[in-house]
């Protein structure tokens, strides 16, 4: 490892996500095996797809006996946001080698993206190699634990009492990342449009409302930034 300091900073940034990864991995293992998947298929999901929300959607649709094409289209729509993460990371990690970018892409889960982009925007002096070390640090506690927790759930069955509000670990971890990102009026405006947009587009099927809301929010953020810098130039 070329930049151990950045790696460990990333590692400790990724560590609290275990609060989400462990219960959700276990729940996925339980849900998937109860749906009729065997252990290797359940692990296939967590290792090959490695995307919490899309995995749950796919298994749910398979239980409902949806056609294979519908299962694929709907679950991939849930993962379309990953293409936006990919574009957002490109200016930071575009210079690393092709196979390293492939590794980054395989591990591109919400937590890895959010924790890394928060760090990159706060530390513009980081080199692409330092950014890569940080990213690998974040995913080190997160992704292997996802596999292990899935296996635990698939083999041990339900060990988490169903009444506990563990579903809410997801919004809590993301709130902890989003609030520090609201560093300018443009960021706040984008976040507000994202929230209002997703509620307004809640009728749009296949989770595409989120994508529409996100695109509108990006345009809003960019436009507010442009207006503010224009005003600054005039003054």
């Amino acid at each position, binding site marked *: 490892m070329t930049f151990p300091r950045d790696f460990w900073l990333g590692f400790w940034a990724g*560590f*609290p*996500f275990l609060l989400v990864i462990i219960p959700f991995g276990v729940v996925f293992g339980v849900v998937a095996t109860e749906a009729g998947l065997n252990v290797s*298929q359940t692990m296939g*999901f967590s290792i090959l797809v*490695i995307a919490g929300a899309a995995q749950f959607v*796919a298994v749910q649709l*398979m239980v409902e*006996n949806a056609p*294979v094409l519908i*299962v*694929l289209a709907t679950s*991939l729509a849930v993962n379309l*946001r*990953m*293409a936006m*993460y*990919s574009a*957002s*990371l*490109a*200016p930071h*990690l*575009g*210079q690393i080698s092709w196979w390293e*970018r492939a590794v980054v892409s*395989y591990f*591109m889960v*919400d937590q890895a*993206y*959010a*924790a890394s*982009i928060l760090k990159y925007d706060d530390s513009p002096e980081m080199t692409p190699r330092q950014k890569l070390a940080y990213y690998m640090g974040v995913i080190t506690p997160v992704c292997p634990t996802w596999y292990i927790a899935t296996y635990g759930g698939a083999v041990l069955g339900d060990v988490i009492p169903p009444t*506990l*509000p563990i*579903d*809410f670990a997801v*919004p*809590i971890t*993301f*709130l*902890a*990342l*989003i609030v*520090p*990102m609201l560093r300018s009026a*443009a960021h706040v405006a*984008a*976040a507000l449009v*994202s929230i209002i*947009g*997703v*509620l307004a587009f809640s009728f749009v099927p296949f989770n595409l409302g989120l994508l529409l809301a*996100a695109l*509108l*929010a*990006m345009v*809003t*953020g960019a436009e507010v*930034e442009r207006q503010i810098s224009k005003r600054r130039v005039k003054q």
Partner: protein
Amino acid sequence: MTLSDAQIWLVIICLGAGSFLLRLSFLGIIGSRDLPEWLLRHLRYTAVAVMPGMITPMILFPTATGGQFDMVRIGAAVATIAISLWTRNATLTIFGGAGVLFALHFLLPA
């Protein structure tokens, strides 16, 4: 479930490949090429454009309560935001938010 073993593996492999290609898409194609300033300006807002919209329905209409507004979850969300503004530390915020969530869960009458 009526899907055969082969069909299940087909779903897993296609979904895995599709997700990987979505993740690789821009990072793979753009690489080290310079992007125009207007595009970079939009990409700067990706995280704040996706994440708040992603968690808003989870906070307001949790699936676990059948979409019912839930004081425990709303209270935990408000506390999490407050802890984040106060401590400016993501780790403290996550553990603090989880602490408030479980405290409210066990203290508030169901």
